């Protein structure tokens, strides 16, 4: 029991909270951009798994984690373009298409993985990203290792939060972007190219979700296995709702879910006699409880999830 109050345990827990929250944060921000333009994308899990594979594969072949992450982002965009074309141009139902991506992308990922590594049954060890301590700041006791000794992607994720907030609230482009999600017809009459904005949203969404997936294989495990995403896309989706479509709220929600993930891993190490399945349920149950107690009825962008027929009056 002592171990619980151990300082070391606490810092470890907080440290891994920040690390575990990072992929969810990337993906939740991806969804924020998408939903702000009126596109509910529940295919995040699929995009993540494809980004995870391509990131891993390219990282492994080139030996450079940065290239891997970039490739992950690009592959995320590529997959999301299917969703974008079908929901924006064809006005296909967004939920259904998100599901289609969720089924298609993991299948494609496992197919490519099997083609690339068909002759080996052992786990392939890929590249992993090195930590980049921030000079001076990382020497502060306790806070230094907690906040200033991470891999670059972690900084990037958390810096994206204020950047997104500024973009949405204080720039013309951001306000235009939001207008598309609130009332596309009015936006169009003001000369905003609604269709283009929606495509831009999909590019951003795909890239961030792809990075979130690549984070898992390059920064978190450095191996690839099927099911590595483990529902994080859906957890990110609930983080967006729980965070009420605001970057800061979304970040807090992600930290909470990251904390649950970190906690269950720590608890597994602390008490090996407890069946690990029960501990692994923690993040999912936490998501459920948080939503049940703090979830709100509709309060997102007004035109969220609706198709936009340009010619229709």
């Amino acid at each position, binding site marked *: 029991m002592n171990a619980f109050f151990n300082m070391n345990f606490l810092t470890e827990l907080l440290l891994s909270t920040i690390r575990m929250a990072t992929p969810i944060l990337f993906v939740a921000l991806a969804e924020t951009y998408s939903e702000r333009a009126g596109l509910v994308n529940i295919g995040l899990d699929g995009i993540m798994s494809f980004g995870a594979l391509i990131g891993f594969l390219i990282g492994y072949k080139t030996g450079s984690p940065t290239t891997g992450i970039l490739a992950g982002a690009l592959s995320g965009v590529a997959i999301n373009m299917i969703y974008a074309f079908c929901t924006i141009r064809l006005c296909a139902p967004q939920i259904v298409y998100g599901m289609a991506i969720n089924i298609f992308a993991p299948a494609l990922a496992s197919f490519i993985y099997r083609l690339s590594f068909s002759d080996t049954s052992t786990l392939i060890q890929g590249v992993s990203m090195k930590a980049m301590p921030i000079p001076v700041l990382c020497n502060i006791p306790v806070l230094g290792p907690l906040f200033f000794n991470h891999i670059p992607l972690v900084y990037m994720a958390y810096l994206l939060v204020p950047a997104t907030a500024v973009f949405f609230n204080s720039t013309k482009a951001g306000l235009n972007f939001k207008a598309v999600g609130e009332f596309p017809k009015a936006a169009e009459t003001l000369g905003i190219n609604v269709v283009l904005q929606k495509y831009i949203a999909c590019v951003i969404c795909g890239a961030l979700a792809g990075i979130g997936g690549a984070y898992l294989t390059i920064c978190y495990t450095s191996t690839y296995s099927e099911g590595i995403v483990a529902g994080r896309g859906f957890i990110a989706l609930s983080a967006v709702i729980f965070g009420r479509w605001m970057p800061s709220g979304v970040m807090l929600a992600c930290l909470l879910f990251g904390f649950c993930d970190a906690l269950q891993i720590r608890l597994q190490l602390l008490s090996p006699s407890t*069946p690990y399945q029960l501990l692994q349920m923690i993040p999912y149950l936490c998501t459920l409880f948080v939503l049940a107690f703090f*979830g709100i009825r509709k309060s997102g962008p007004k035109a969220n999830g609706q198709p936009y027929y340009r010619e229709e009056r």
Partner: protein
Amino acid sequence: MKQRENLMKVIVPVLSILVAFIIGGIIMICLGKNPFQAYGFLFSGAFGSSRKIAQTLVIACPLIFTGLTAAFSYKCGVFNLGGEGQFVMGAVASIFFVTKSGIGGIAGILLSLLIGAAAGAVWGAIPGILKITRGLNEMIVSIMLNYVATLFMGYVYTTLLRDGSVPQTFAIPDSTKLAVVSKSFPVHWGVWVALFLAVAGYYFLFYTSKGFKLRAVGLNSTAAFFNGFPVNRYVLFSFIASGAVAGLGGSVELHGKQLRLMGGFGQGYGFDGVAIALIAQLNPIGTAAVAFIFAVLRKGASTLQTGMQIPTAVVDIIQALVIIFAVAGTALLKLPAIRQYINSHMGKKEVTN
């Protein structure tokens, strides 16, 4: 006009299946394999003998159940993505019942199937209740419950009902195995239950007033509400009913095929069910047909792997392409421009009146 729309509803899925097969063939050419030979292997693996056809039907069985689960809930306008969790919980409840109660024979099977369906219904009711009372997104809730159910099943087969050193449960008693049609055609009668449910579901949705109201809620819940339909009650009912179907499916799979729980039980069946229902345009009978096609692909995939060293994942891709094309095709037909084109070029007579 109506007739043409119905025709389109059949043409779109059939065409998407064809196109997906063609793209699958192109992928095989890229791998340096002969696609005709490969599809030959695939179909002979699925239809080569009466035994193989029976095995294909047995594979189709759980897919029909989860497909009906998805179709039934979407018809009411709610997205129950929790088919997998409900399927698993049905099987878990059944294995507890048959291993702990000691009731065997027909009575044991019937009770166990009932309990499985009840467990699925309870698991399916949770997202429904949370949606109605708290306004929660049913998709997220049901997905989270899938993970909880799978982990709980893991707890059951590694700890609670573990059979010795292997991480799996005890097998169900012999007397509670589902009987098969005949030795040469080993199809357990759970398949007939699935087919019966498909027909019954079709009848309910399209030929009863309750089914009509359920579809009305799905098409426009506001209009249904102002017509005095108890919208929330129908939403909850569709969750419970679809959960029960999935739970029954899990129970049937346990008694008919797997006979015990172990890792991977039911994995992916929920999402496959969603895909199947969407391709079948939420028609229960169509769902059974598409489930059978998926089963053919699955059964054939293993022969493809052993016969031609083509990874089974190619079949997953074909399946995924089918859904992408089918959904896009349906959406395409609804576009204002396309509608206009169809009306003006093909249905002149109908337009003039």
